[in-house]
């Protein structure tokens, strides 16, 4: 893509705002429209845009497949872990009322708010990782096909 300077420059300007908007949708989801799933796909589309313009290798350096793989399961773990945590604190599974605490009131979220925050974070992490990983899987195949096509005529 080195031959399309306009696309490269515009993408470089856009990507920070896409990621910022992803964070906004994630962390403001308790107040406005949005939430984990929406934020996850917006964040992943930012990464995928970077991969489309600057190449698969570039985006793999930014978000290494090994890390993304682990994030896939980490998100589900955060979600289910919140449920187990409420059970350990004496409530039912995913009963966020038991997350009530009195550390820094008004600054740290507490109770239902904290529960929703953690759960949405889990959803966001899993969705981002899964979408990015699926893109890697597809794009990796395309890249491998091109490499094969280049190598075959030489021998």
């Amino acid at each position: 893509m080195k031959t399309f300077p306009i696309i490269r420059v515009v993408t470089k300007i856009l990507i920070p705002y896409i990621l910022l908007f992803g964070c906004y949708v994630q962390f403001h989801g308790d107040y406005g429209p949005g939430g984990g799933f929406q934020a996850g796909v917006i964040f992943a589309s930012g990464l995928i845009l970077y991969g489309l313009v600057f190449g698969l290798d570039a985006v793999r350096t930014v978000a290494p497949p090994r890390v993304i793989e682990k994030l896939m399961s980490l998100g589900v773990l955060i979600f289910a872990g919140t449920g187990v945590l409420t059970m350990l604190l004496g409530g039912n599974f995913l009963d966020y009322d038991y997350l009530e605490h009195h550390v820094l009131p008004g600054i740290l979220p507490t109770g239902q708010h904290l529960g929703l925050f953690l759960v949405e974070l889990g959803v966001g992490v899993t969705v981002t990782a899964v979408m990015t990983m699926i893109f890697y899987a597809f794009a990796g195949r395309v890249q491998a096909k091109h490499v094969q096509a280049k190598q075959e005529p030489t021998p």
Partner: protein
Amino acid sequence: MTAIDVAILLFLAITAVTIARIRDLWAAVMFTGIYSFLSASWMLLLDAPDVSFTEAAVGAGISTVLMLSTLALTGTTEKASGAKFRPIPFMVVVLTGCMLIYGTLDMPQIGDPSDPIHIHPSPSFVERTQGDMHGLPNVVTAVLGSYRGYDTLGETTVVFTAGIAVLLILRRGKEEDSKTGGRPGSAAASGDNA
């Protein structure tokens, strides 16, 4: 219905027919992207910004990219089906369409407070969230994350399982590993060039 509603629905219909008729797959994928973007606008008009976000990012963005990478692996033209006019399928489609349109005549007005969906679960649901959630204003997040937390956990697990399945099918084992092993060196080399 305002002029914008009519225009978007009309464009949706035109795009759908175009996708069905076009034989160039690359153009068809582009049209599905346009279709998704129009759906996102339509969802926004129906006051569902959450769905609109998702549709714009997944439908117009990610799935279009995935379809294009699939086309890069397969091919970009579809064989002509040698279609003749077949009366029986045509009749079935027309009849089904007529029945669906007849069914919409019984649908309630958009936003009517006496809709079944607004009455059925509990009319006080919206009022109750204020107390239960300690003043968090977004009822949608409260319902999805807290009242129906199990469902959302299930959905997240479905997304996770789908991701694992795609990786199991598409991943290329050892080759992939050796590639990622060689990555830092090649990245450093390209960095030197820049």
